[in-house]
């Protein structure tokens, strides 16, 4: 791999843009196709499919077999609520390879002392979330238990195609949330995207266990085909 190509690849990945490296494994020749240039590429069809499925692999082309290394942005976790669970969730998610961002307007919660090494935005969701460009590679959780903060955050997430949306709260709390959100104009189908009660049902009690249950559910949503997940 030429150093220039590797440098461009790393730049594209840092900017969270899908990129494909096309390698002729017989000759070793290689080229990089940026996500934005796929539509104009001679291999457009296979490249689009590769980005859609995020799967690398060998493909047959007119000029023989080539290997596609597909790089899609690493998953990101946006956490609303700098709460106790988040103190376990953020480092665990980072270890699983997520870029983690925490949003909480309450500065007493959103402090560096409580969250070393995590990107924290101490703003209201309306201000903090739009610049994050929440995308389909993003998992989104609302953990404050406070409708003033969680509701606008969830409304923002539901307007986007993030692959997972979860909200903390009991069935009762969630039922009230569903009522508020639908009365606020969201469709039932849209609100049904929220995983609540949040996390896999593993009997989690401590904040770290709840974080584990949440990450288990997010991983399931990310990796299992929809019909395989409950």
């Amino acid at each position, binding site marked *: *791999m030429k150093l220039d190509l590797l440098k461009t690849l790393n730049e594209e*990945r840092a900017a969270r843009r899908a990129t494909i490296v096309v390698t002729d494994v017989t000759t070793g020749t290689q080229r990089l196709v940026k996500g934005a240039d796929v539509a104009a590429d001679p291999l457009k069809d296979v490249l689009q499919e590769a980005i859609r499925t995020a799967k690398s692999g060998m493909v047959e082309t007119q000029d023989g077999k080539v290997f596609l290394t597909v790089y899609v942005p*690493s998953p990101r976790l946006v956490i609303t609520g700098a709460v106790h669970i988040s103190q376990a969730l953020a480092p665990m998610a980072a270890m699983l390879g997520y870029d983690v961002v925490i949003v909480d307007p309450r500065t007493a919660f959103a402090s560096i002392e409580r969250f070393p090494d995590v990107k924290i935005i101490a703003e209201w969701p309306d201000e903090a979330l739009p610049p994050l460009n929440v995308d389909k590679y993003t998992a989104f959780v609302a953990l404050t238990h406070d409708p003033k903060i969680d509701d606008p955050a969830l409304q923002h997430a539901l307007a986007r195609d993030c692959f997972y949306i979860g909200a903390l709260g009991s069935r009762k709390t969630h039922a009230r949330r569903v009522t508020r959100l639908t009365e606020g104009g969201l469709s039932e189908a849209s609100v049904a995207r929220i995983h609540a009660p949040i996390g896999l049902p593993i009997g989690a009690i401590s904040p770290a266990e709840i974080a584990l249950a949440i990450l288990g559910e997010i991983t399931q949503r990310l990796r299992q085909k929809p019909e395989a997940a409950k």
Partner: protein
Amino acid sequence: MLARDEDILTAAEEWSKAGRGVALATVVETWGSAPRPVGSNLVIDREGNFLGSVSGGCVEGAVVTEAIDVIESGKSKMLEFGVADDTAWKVGLSCGGTIRVFVEKVG
């Protein structure tokens, strides 16, 4: 800290810029059960330092040895590993799968 995919490629770039002599190994095909999916990367330098993985640790040693050769010659190689046996390679995958690994020089 665990090596993420970006870290591996960032390391490849940094190591190469630092003149360490670098190769990149990529899993290009798998048959049967294989521990790491197609597209997984391992970066290796001339001294045999490496980051990432192409298997569960079963064949990394052999890939590193081949990679050092690729760094010296500049010629890319395709390696294939099957079930552990005495033929072809002295190492193999205990899980019973087969993998092909493309090794190329960086820079």
